[in-house]
């Protein structure tokens, strides 16, 4: 008989190509262990991520979503991360209205040199989701 595996949250992490993705890469190259619950999606800029994509993640069975971009002032496209910050405020409001709760979405700035920060950010978020438990799924949700 196999043991029932403990529940693991499913996390989607949207990482910007120029900073956060390179940060995640650095975490990997430096052999920094971080939670395997996270699924990284590389995007060219954090501002690519709109409310529709985030809601779609929750709809398809994510328990949490992370949007990781460059530090303010470091954006490859000058101000993409600032635009994203404005947009995430709205998504937080939507998540509260929907009963999902704003703490299931985080926005963090991680530079290409911050592999350690990437690892600890992921671990903290996954630990939070583990304490909150799974998000209710749609009957036909993945």
């Amino acid at each position: 008989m196999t043991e029932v595996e403990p529940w693991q949250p499913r996390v989607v992490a949207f990482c910007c190509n120029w900073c956060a993705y390179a940060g995640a890469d650095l975490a990997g190259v430096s052999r920094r262990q971080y939670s395997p619950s996270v699924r990284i999606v590389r995007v060219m800029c954090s501002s690519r991520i709109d409310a529709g994509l985030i809601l779609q993640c929750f709809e398809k069975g994510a328990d949490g979503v992370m949007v990781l971009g460059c530090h303010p002032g470091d954006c490859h496209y000058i101000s993409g991360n600032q635009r994203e910050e404005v947009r995430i405020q709205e998504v937080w409001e939507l998540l509260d209205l929907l009963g999902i709760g704003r703490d299931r979405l985080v926005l963090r700035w991680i530079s290409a040199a911050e592999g350690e920060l990437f690892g600890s950010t992921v671990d903290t978020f996954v630990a939070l989701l583990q304490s909150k438990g799974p998000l209710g799924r749609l009957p036909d949700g993945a």
Partner: protein
Amino acid sequence: MERDDIFRRFHAEACIGCGRCTYACVAAQRYDSFSPRKVVEQGLNGQGGERVPQLWSCTSCGACSQVCNAGVDFPRLVRGLRSLARRDEVPMAAHHGVLNAVGRLTSSPSLRPRSASWVTPDLQIDPRSRSMLFVGCVPYFDVALRYIRNDLLELPRSAVRLLNALGVRPRLDPSERCCGHDAYWAGDDALFERLARENWQAARDAGVEEIVTFCPECASAWRDLYPQVVGDTGIRVRTMAEVLAEGIAAGKLELGAGEDVVTYQDPCRLSKCVGIVEQPREVLRSLGELRDMPRSGPMSVCCGTSGWVDCDHTAKKVQVERLQEAAATGADVLVTACPKCLVHLSCADRHHASELSSRVRIEDMCVRTARRLDRERSSSDES
């Protein structure tokens, strides 16, 4: 249901090919490639292939069946074709698909939406009332469409204020779900049925006897669409237009007449689906002078898009034309009774102002009435 059954079921065979539908159709005005007459003709002849071009641009406003001599139910025919088409094509969602996602997410039985966060302390809500205000998606609009209008929460607030003035303290469903209207017309039967059952069960378990709504789509869903899923709902559905018209006729609402000249945009669900044409006009006449546009009542023109899909510059053209028609009546204010008409027309007014020779203010019927009530009360307090 297969393709041929759909054409048979909605009486397409009765079509005489007169083309009145295409003449009345907003989607045909937007796209040369879409024509209700052609869809029916090609469907009956087995031509045109499986795919109907611009199928998602139909707003299911019902203008076509309104003018049809033969009794073809074209909006439901399109709905049937959509439920087949959605197997392999996805409509282009407007506003990043946020509002479509809200419908799907709120259908999850384990989520408890908190959509009643707009309530302010001055509103009298009674959690044991038998009469419930069904709010709809406006709290979500207020977040996702704030860049178009930032006063959308005034709609539910005004509705409660007016109900309070009429002596009704409504209850709210603290975890209300989407009404499913858009899912129904997009041909998503599974989602619509799930939402209909959940909303109906929540209302029934709470002992609700009457539902009041200011959104014509919610009214149409509760009144005409839910019985298709759950049978007799046992719940009376009334729109704010009916409630207000009754209240004014009974002399329960003290509204002083104003100087403004207004015109009225008939929301398609209210005028064509639910059949309420006169009541909102009675309300507006009690507030001032009403000047109808040439295309009004059941022959009114749709605000351009519906279901949060397929919005583009052609839809804006329809809306700009409508705004010009409104301004040409000499009215200062264009009043509507549907949150979606309000958003769509405000969007055109805001983003295409340069194309408008003269502009009208765009307001909601409930908000306007509630504001007049406030003004009337404060002036009687002073005197």
